[in-house]
């Protein structure tokens, strides 16, 4: 069956990474189960005891613990604790993490800071697209000696995207923008 995880070269997970993940799942499940057990049972409202709010979350927490234990057992059987437990792990491609952080940072700044905090949407959008396109193409443009051209292209795309999205959503389809 097709997996939509981007595996690249090597395995997405190894017995050891599954073993570590299983511990996280078990802790998470236990925390959820305890929180559900301690949840108000609304006795003051004299509700039916089979309808307490913590019932389903508690059962789900227990389910997560069981699945986590199964995953831990499987990883252990596959040799998670042996020296070969991490063999075949997919290695990040050169520059993958750097690019990830370069993409993540402007997205978080835009979504968490710029959006809805006073700046008009079109301006925030233009700023975000210009900065992101410029950052992502910086190395390539610098190597080609086209930094200024790269910035102009990024700015044109940014302004066009900001203006067009604002017009289509706000004016044409009457959708409220942040």
């Amino acid at each position, binding site marked *: 069956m097709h997996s939509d995880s981007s595996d690249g070269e090597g395995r997405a997970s190894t017995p050891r990474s599954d073993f570590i993940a299983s511990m996280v799942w078990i802790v998470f499940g236990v925390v959820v189960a305890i929180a559900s057990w301690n949840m108000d049972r609304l006795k003051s409202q004299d509700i039916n005891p089979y309808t307490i709010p913590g019932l389903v979350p508690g059962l789900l927490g227990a389910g997560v613990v069981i699945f986590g234990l199964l995953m831990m057992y499987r990883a252990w059987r596959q040799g998670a604790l042996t020296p070969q437990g991490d063999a075949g792990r997919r290695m990040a491609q050169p520059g993958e993490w750097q690019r990830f952080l370069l993409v993540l940072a402007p997205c978080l700044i835009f979504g968490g800071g710029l959006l809805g905090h006073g700046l008009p949407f079109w301006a925030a959008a233009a700023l975000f697209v210009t900065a992101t396109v410029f950052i992502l193409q910086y190395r390539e443009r610098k190597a080609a000696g086209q930094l200024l051209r790269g910035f102009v292209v990024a700015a044109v795309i940014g302004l066009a995207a900001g203006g067009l999205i604002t017009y289509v959503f706000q004016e044409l*389809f009457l959708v409220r923008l942040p």
Partner: protein
Amino acid sequence: MLHGLEMLGSAYLDFLNFTSIMYGLGGAFLGILVGCMPGLSATLCIALLTTLTLKLPANDAILILICSYVGTLYGGSRSAILLNIPGTAANAASCADGHALALRGEAGRAIGIATSGAFCGTLFGVLCLAAFTPTLAEVALKFGAYEFFWLALFGVTMSGSIVGDDPLKGWLMGALGLLCAQIGQEGLYAYDRFTFGWDQLSGGISLIPALIGAFGFAEVLTILSDPVEKKLVEMKDSTLPRFKEVFQYWRTVLRSGVIGVLTGLLPGVGEDAGAWMSYAGARATSKEKEKFGKGSIDGLMAAETGDMSSIPGHIIPCLALGIPGSAPSAVLMAAMIIHGIQPGPMMMIAHPQFVYHVVAMTTLATFSILLFGLFLVRPLLYVLRIRRTFLMPVIFLLASVGAYASASRLFDVYAMLVIGVGAYFLRKKGYQMAPFVLGLVLGTLLDKSLRRGLVLSDGSIAPFFTRPICAVLAFVTIFTMLMYIPLVNRAVKGAMGRLKGLVFRRKPA
């Protein structure tokens, strides 16, 4: 019967006007564009268009969404054939044979086969949609809390088992989705669960921002962190659909249509299952098995017919039971609710005409993709040449607007960001998003059904296992999970082996 046909005819007439046809063509056009771009899924496309069409009348909005749904899956075959990257997960089965044909200089022929397979598959699915939705809705009227509890659990379990390579990870994601659905005010007493005193969390995690995060933002991060851009195969031959090949491979088309609709009926399984199972079916029955994966027409036709016929298949349980068959149909269901139409068993009573409207909308979508397949293949391929460093920031911008617009809450944008980053890391470790999404959709139903059922039975769990439909669903769900325990698996396989041996020994006598 006659009344149903009359309503179907009236539904078709309702959409035979300039505005509806333009909306349909526009939706399909946008869908094909999004589908062409690797990584951008039907879920993201429908979620973004849901926010864009918020102010339109319900029928027009749902028409655009259905046409974009069909268009996205159809468009996904282009990048599978020309780039060897599936445009959507559902087109992965088309990669091997489609790209092999393209490398042989038959890219146009491969696209033509994909178009004819997609058209026939969707049309077959539409017939099933019209025939089975009212019947299933009638049966579902007899369902109570016990049946709905098992349906919800069955959906999440099946989704976890079938999507991806590791059922255990699928079930964990399903449980995580169900747990996320418990956040906020619960449905019986309006008690705040897991809100930690934060008012914004009382409303719970909305489906559309969560889907945009899981399928949109996570995909933007994945695509942009990968520095490799793939090369497009040039297309020189004719791209016209090959209906001659449809007649030649009519058995494949029919078989794949049936498999696609049947997999579509299973909650949460997704369109890719329809494509892969149809592909496997075609391979098993083909006389030219060795050609599969090396440019087999049979294989490409099966994969495209299977994934497209599963679209109407997914819409059937969505309309009749209120349980979506896939992530895109979950967004479609959310859009219907936003527009005041509650899918589920009561739909045939509250909005009987709407079911037939959906049939008409899907038919319009089918003819729209045929039209684009006939006349606009080459111009639409220019989208594949746009550099992703230009495109992805704009997609993120649209994702932010999409997350915000459905409820005008900045909190939804933050939720989208958190879910997107989480989904990025989880996908890297082989966890699938489809069971999570289904869990998020079905969590409320599961919670309410279990508690209501327990009240009705005064705390007894017997009705959850003794009612006929419950017994079947409970058996399949529990058996699927138990089979994962090595001890049980070995015991069952041993018993099956002994049973086979007994039958085999008795046969000659």
